[in-house]
């Protein structure tokens, strides 16, 4: 299909991007475009204007900062996947970046784009939620930090204001075990269900992909683990508080069952 007509502006700074967003309510930021453009082709999304921030290369970086890792929002999956530094500091991010979509998607798609798109079936929001990432948003009045728990308020909704630009993502260093269990029909598909588990502070943070309207922390599992449950027992609570969709990839019932298997496998790997 062919998108509806739209305007296009390439900006050379975050400030210019903010200005462009403020000038047009229907404008949307274009980063890698691999979520937005397919939606536009299907005419599910019909922005009046695309504000292209794809060439703001200053926002593409991975660096150690304040005991954690700072990742520029426009860093592409391919760069995350190939970064030795990231593989040392936050290996789950590098590994999962290599599992998103297909090579074309990974060469264009950005980590910030994935967060702003807030797809509950996206891998990266779920992993960042498990890591307890901090998100840095830049607006007209400067920057603010958004906690992971607040970042994904609803379906395809982020906590970013319409005229804010996500500029940086901070994750803690993860020296312990981790696992991402991504269950797909085809290699390039979204997860039918995904589970991220990261060993932290003697226990594990666990999050779920595509098990509700937003990426979710598996609270029941974490609680059980904190109470000393073994992985298999804790995994039985995987779907607590979730609201998985039913679609052609799997029914709600199947996703609930799958989440328990995948949480157990993720915990066994992360806590091994």
């Amino acid at each position, binding site marked *: 299909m*062919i998108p509806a007509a739209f305007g296009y502006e390439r900006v050379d700074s975050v400030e210019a991007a903010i200005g462009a967003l403020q000038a047009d309510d229907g404008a949307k930021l274009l980063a890698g475009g691999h979520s937005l453009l397919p939606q536009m082709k299907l005419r599910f999304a019909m922005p009046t204007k695309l504000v292209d921030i794809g060439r703001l290369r200053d926002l593409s970086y991975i660096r150690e900062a304040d005991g954690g890792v700072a990742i520029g929002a426009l860093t592409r999956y391919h760069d995350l996947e190939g970064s030795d530094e990231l593989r040392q500091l936050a290996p789950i991010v590098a590994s999962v970046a290599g599992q998103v979509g*297909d090579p074309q998607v990974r060469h264009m798609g950005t980590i910030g784009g994935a967060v702003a798109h807030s797809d509950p079936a996206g891998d990266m929001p779920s992993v960042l939620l498990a890591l307890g990432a901090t998100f840095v948003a830049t607006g007209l009045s400067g920057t603010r930090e958004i906690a992971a728990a607040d970042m994904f308020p609803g379906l395809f909704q982020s906590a970013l204001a319409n005229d804010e630009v996500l500029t940086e993502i901070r994750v803690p260093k993860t020296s312990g075990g981790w696992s991402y269990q991504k*269950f797909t*029909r*085809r*290699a390039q598909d979204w997860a039918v269900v995904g589970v991220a588990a990261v060993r932290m502070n003697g226990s594990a943070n666990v999050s779920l992909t595509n098990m509700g309207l937003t990426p979710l922390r598996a609270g029941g599992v974490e609680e059980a683990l904190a109470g000393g449950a073994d992985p298999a027992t804790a995994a039985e609570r995987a779907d607590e508080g979730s609201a998985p969709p039913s679609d052609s990839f*799997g029914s709600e019932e199947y996703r609930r069952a799958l989440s328990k298997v*995948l949480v157990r496998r993720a915990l066994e790997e992360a806590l091994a």
Partner: protein
Amino acid sequence: MATTETFIGQPVLRKEDPELITGQANYIDNWTMPGMLWMALARPPYVHATIDGVDTSEAASMPGVVGVFTAADLELGALPFVWPITEDIKVPVHYALASDKVRFNGDAVAVVVAETREQAIDAAEAVAVTATELPAVIELEQAAKDEVLIHDDLGTNSVVHWSHGGAGDQSIFDSAPVVVQERYAQPRLIPNAIEPRGCLAYGVPAMDEWTLVSSTQIPHIVKVTLSGVTGIEEQKLRVIAPDVGGGFGSKLNVYAEEALALGLARKLGRPVKWIEGRRENYVATTHGRGVIHDCTLAGTEDGKILGLKFVELADMGAYYQLLTPGIPELGGWVYMGPYDPEAYWYEFTGIVTNSTPTDAYRGAGRPEATYVIERLVDTFARRIGKDPVEVRRMNLKPAFAEASTAISGLNVDSGNYEATLDTALGLVEYDKLRAQQRDARERGDTKQLGIGLSTYIEMCGLAPSNILGALRYAAGGWDGATIECLPTGKVLVKTGTSPHGQGHETTWAQIVADGLGVTPDDIEVLHGDTLITPLGMDTYGSRSVSVGGAALHFAVEKVKAKARTIAAHELEVSEDDLEWGEGSWHVAGAPDKAKTIPEIAFSAWHAHSLPEGTEPHLNATAVYDPPNFTWPGGAHICVVEVDTETGATEIVKYVAVDDCGTVINPMIVDGQIHGGVAQGVAEALYEEAIYDESGNLTTSTMTQYLVPTAVEVPTITTDGSHQTPSTTNPLGVKGIGEAGTIAAPPAVINAVIDAVSHLGVTAIEKPASPERVWRAIQDAQHQQGQSGQGGAA
């Protein structure tokens, strides 16, 4: 260049590839013309509705729009349907644009013509349709109840019933020691050629001469039929199939858009082009399969198959396309598979529904048949506690080199089925796998091994015109070939087949090269243009090499005969003194007194001294109508690992042993098997057209409709050592385009069921999605738990 080298049987590199792999191929979307307009169709968002009004005024006022047309504005006849398989078949009338009712997602009510494609698409969206929605029926058995009629004038949705009539003692289905009854459902599939459809119509208005360039498998049939639909006189209509990016049967059709493009070009006097979008392709281009079978196998306790009986419901979709009800009937001749039962029954009822018309999809009737027989044989083996190999071996028809009548009534040209099974078992290391499977079961591994077999035959090479006529098909099954030997020693071949990925340019060149003693590089093969190759019946049903290739063989023989006359004249000997060998006509016993074809071609061209009564130019045309179909066969074995916790299936080994008669180019045959198996794996594990309760296609993009990629398709081990020659044609060739798709689905499904059969699972339907497999395991465990409790009580 004259040569003594032989090429048949060699993996000659494909002559057609350089342009394809360097982006220089000429697909329809590359064609452009001065003054060209674009066409887009308004397909209203209804599945089943009475049209109350179509308002084109807003669309007509949009930028670039040249005109918006409804059915009343165009003088087009009904679209062609050429296979009324019974005398009393009910035929829905099918126009390019609907005017009374919308009957499925793809039905269009108006067509927009604009200066650019984008303008045409935007304006088509602005066509306003007021309609009264009617309940939609998608499910076959629901439609069969006739509570909602798709075509009021037909009075029923059950539009056709065809019966083979049966053979042998039908009482066996009640009286046999073992009677296995099963019901198998096979969902609709979307063919998914990489290149969607598209066409361009242009012409010389003053002469009423028109050309249609279309991404089609059948330029010749399109020309004949669209002449009727549009009223353009056939001698003034030319159809070109340019480079065509795949078809799989979906381009074996004559479509509304082709008729509209021609009609509009003629009406407006400007070239009109249309390119299909992928979502449009999913609803407006034909689907395949969509059948339910009630199956009965009568057998003995020790594994002998006594009778096979199949009663099928087949989804026709909202209208017939070119062949629709003929597709299940094509399968009707092969439901005995490679076995030799004493009794046989097949019948089907065709039912119209509110969905895309079905028609040929790679295999066309034979995959549907093969799937149910092979599932049934495995079920039978499980029922009597025998290994599926043992049961097959007991029932395979013994090798035969001359045509032999099958219980379905047709003559099978030749076959050696058990040999292909033995080779496949050896390649897959069957006994070792069974041992591994036992170990994994004993250990209670999460991942369990499954082995699935499919021993198949198929009927292809469509085919004898008299039989097609007896089956009430409107056209013939012959094909034509012309050979022109050029004065520089090169050769032009014109074939009536219309390849769209099969590699005819190479294979045909190999046949001619061996026949005339030249090299494939000396030969250019022309096809796909009714002006250049007027004699043709096109490409489908694995017919091309056994009909078009055989025609070429006869053209070669004619060229050689004429060359012999000229050679004898030049060598001043009698024709009887000449022998053909080493790439030339030479005097028997004196090989140095010889004339090669290039030499004779030059003589025939300058024509300075030709024998009396011989026309200048060394050329010949042959039209060949084969006496029979061809019947390939073989054995495929699939090995899977099933994750019993998630239901996920991974294919760990796949062996395909196909006997397609004499092989002209083993590399191309392997490629056909690879592609066919990939599509068969897709059918078994991934692909399914799913509709929601309102009849809208849920799997409407490639995101939801799961075409597997290179990651999912397994490594395929092929074996071409069995080449039982066909007795139907002088080349001994059969056909290989569809074998993979015919053989693979049951091999994969049988493997998946086998992997979890020890858990009590006896059936899993296509596609064996993880959820279906998981559910089958859950259900089986639940039932075993219940029966266990029952036993305890």
